[in-house]
């Protein structure tokens, strides 16, 4: 009982710590549509808060998973990704000191890549992802398209104020690399590199949720 009081006391002390995180999606494409993808979830900026949260059983009515549970969940996802046709060289790392989680793999085509993304979602979502084609590569027009179907603003309305704060400072970054130079991109926030072969798009979760911005983009490459 006293231990519990102390834990609550501790969490109270840290509840003013900022919580934010970044998600980074890096994809390098070869000419034939194959390539390499790295997905990074970086919660390092919130580590003080996460460390104190890990001491508790639940926060805001959400169960706090243990380190073992998180590891098991990651292992499950990795196992599934390994079984996808067209996926090879699957690697992952979990850094519980800084709370950085990375998954990377090679893919033979964008369909395989879509399957990887769908593995992080529920079954129902996964079906929609397949249908919606989050990644597509039109070789005849030399166009790469990043899409997504989530209506975040609707999902966001359902969450309560306490949970919303978590997303206020979160960011999402996408970086795509190609062998041919980029001619144009439809998302005005995206920046093309000096070499013209890479493009980066960094958006705040807040803007995505409010439909002010998105990670959707259409990139045209030189033939």
């Amino acid at each position, binding site marked *: 009982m006293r231990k519990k009081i102390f834990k609550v006391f501790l969490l109270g002390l840290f509840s003013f*710590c900022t919580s934010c995180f970044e998600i980074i999606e890096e994809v390098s494409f070869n000419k034939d549509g194959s390539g390499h993808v790295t997905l990074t979830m970086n919660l390092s*900026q919130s580590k*003080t808060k996460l*460390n104190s949260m890990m001491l508790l059983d639940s926060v805001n009515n959400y169960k706090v998973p243990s380190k073992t549970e998180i590891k098991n969940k990651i292992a499950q996802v990795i196992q599934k990704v390994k079984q996808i046709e067209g996926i090879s060289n699957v690697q992952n790392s979990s850094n519980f000191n800084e709370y950085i989680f990375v998954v990377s793999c090679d893919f033979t085509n964008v369909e395989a890549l879509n399957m990887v993304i769908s593995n992080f979602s529920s079954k129902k979502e996964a079906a929609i992802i397949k249908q919606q084609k989050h990644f597509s590569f039109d070789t005849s027009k030399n166009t790469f398209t990043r899409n997504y179907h989530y209506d975040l603003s609707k999902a966001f309305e359902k969450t309560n104020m306490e949970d919303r*704060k978590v997303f206020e400072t979160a960011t999402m970054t996408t970086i795509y690399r190609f062998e041919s130079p980029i001619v144009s991109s439809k998302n005005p926030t995206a920046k093309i*590199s000096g070499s013209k*072969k890479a493009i980066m798009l960094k958006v705040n979760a807040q803007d995505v949720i409010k439909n002010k911005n998105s990670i959707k983009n259409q990139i045209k490459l030189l033939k």
Partner: protein
Amino acid sequence: MKKNLLLAAVFISFVSIAQNIESKIPSSSEAVISINGDRIIELISITEFDNFNFAKKIFKKVNRKTDSTFIVSSIKDLGFDINSKAFYFYTRTDSISYHNFLVKLTDKNKFESLLSTRDKEKIISEGGLHIMADNSSITVWNDNLLLFTGYEKHYNYFKENEERFMAEPENEGVSYYKVKKKITSRWTKAHALNIFKGHGGTSISNSKNYIASKDKNAVASVWVQNYSQLIFGAMSGIYNKMGVSSLDALKSASNLYGVKSITANLYFDEEATRLTTQMEVSSEWQKTFKSFYNSKMNKNFYNYFNQNDILAYMSFSMNTQALLEEYPALMTSMYGGIMPNYKEEVNLSGEFLSLLLDEEAIGELMTGDMLFVLNDFGEKEVTYTTYEYDENYKSKEVTKTKKEVVPDFMIMIGSKKEALLNKVVRLGIKHKLIANKEGYYKINVPKKDMPFDLYVVVKNDILFFTSSEEKISNIVNNRYVKNLGKHQKLIKNNSSVFYINGEKLISKVPVSELSRKERRYFDYAKDNLKDAYFKSSKMKGNKIQSEIKINTSNSHGNSLNVFFNLIEALAK
């Protein structure tokens, strides 16, 4: 003359109605809540209340739900007598539990107009009373009184008596589900009418304990006849399903937590809101409670308390040794009664426990005195990992720093085993978990686990933990400045205190971290709330008293107004 008689009769009937409403509550009620409308109206007028935006929102909701053309725009329009007392009371038989609300009406037509057309169709008239019933409740009213009764049937009772009910000729060919529904609604109606007509047996107003519990200055009062029984009864829904027969267990449960009656009163004073509670300890438990709660905090603790240097604190002063010594007997008394078949087992395990524990040694290691003090919030630089990108967007991992708010605190735990604790410290030093400083020690916690430093020392029968090197150095070198003010009395006279200096604490909250709505709430709180505490007294006679007090500014006349304005600020 006749006219005068008539007037007198009318007057008497009015007076008797006013008195009668409370007398209708049966003395078998296990809990009663009275709401003193008249006292509330003194603190905030009906017009003032009606003008709040949140009140207008409620009226709007009510209006949307009813089909009538009558528009509610004031709390008066609900038809209830706001200027009088209203009651909630809980009653229970072996088969059904009842939640009852009793309130006076000023205008029955207004109340009826709030009902939906579907509800209105359910109303039946019987002997001058209007009755509306559904599957879980019944409402009975006349021109000046309304009783609402919600009910729950006891699972176990109906399981045990299924055969008997189904054997009755009138139930032939009817499903048990329907039979149960018929029986419960019939019994509930009889129960409600009995209360309404005042045939409910002896009245609660004959109970001395109940009458003594109430304070006419309170806006609301709560009275619980027997806390242990009430809690056990509420849980017996669960126990029932596990097959424990409830009535016998219920009787022995009346001693389960050692608490008999509980009374509480809520006050809205000019500059404070107070909730006082009083617990009556049952005679078997009085000795235990007394020895556990009536220990005095070691005076040395006061030397390390400075009221100018605190945002909040918690103090406990209990006697660990007494608790451990009494525990085996408590176990038998608590669980032996509700599990009579296992009385010997419970008894034996209690004695074994006492054999294994050295109560005195544990009592010396942890005396039971404790003080947690939150002194301040400071800023501290912490590092984090992120990425930077070159011109071709190749990422590079970099370490950056940011400022984080960290607490500055001190924890004091009473202990007479200085030699033992020092041995632990020496072992810690040997294994490099603890570093030896000048007369005190620093615990080597990995930075990732705690963003602050932690210092420890044992002195004057107190084990100290603090985040501040300055404080621990002052303790060791006898330089700590004490300043107790009103807190010495508060800590000394109570077994536990939880105090928050709201004004100071709010001023420390980093505004940049708050959302706009939270900021509005904080701004209002900063201007209107001062400090607050919870205290629980030592045992006096056979009673333990506790109080929650929130001091408010007097900007709104009284604290009820302050809280309504707070709701208003939140509802914007």
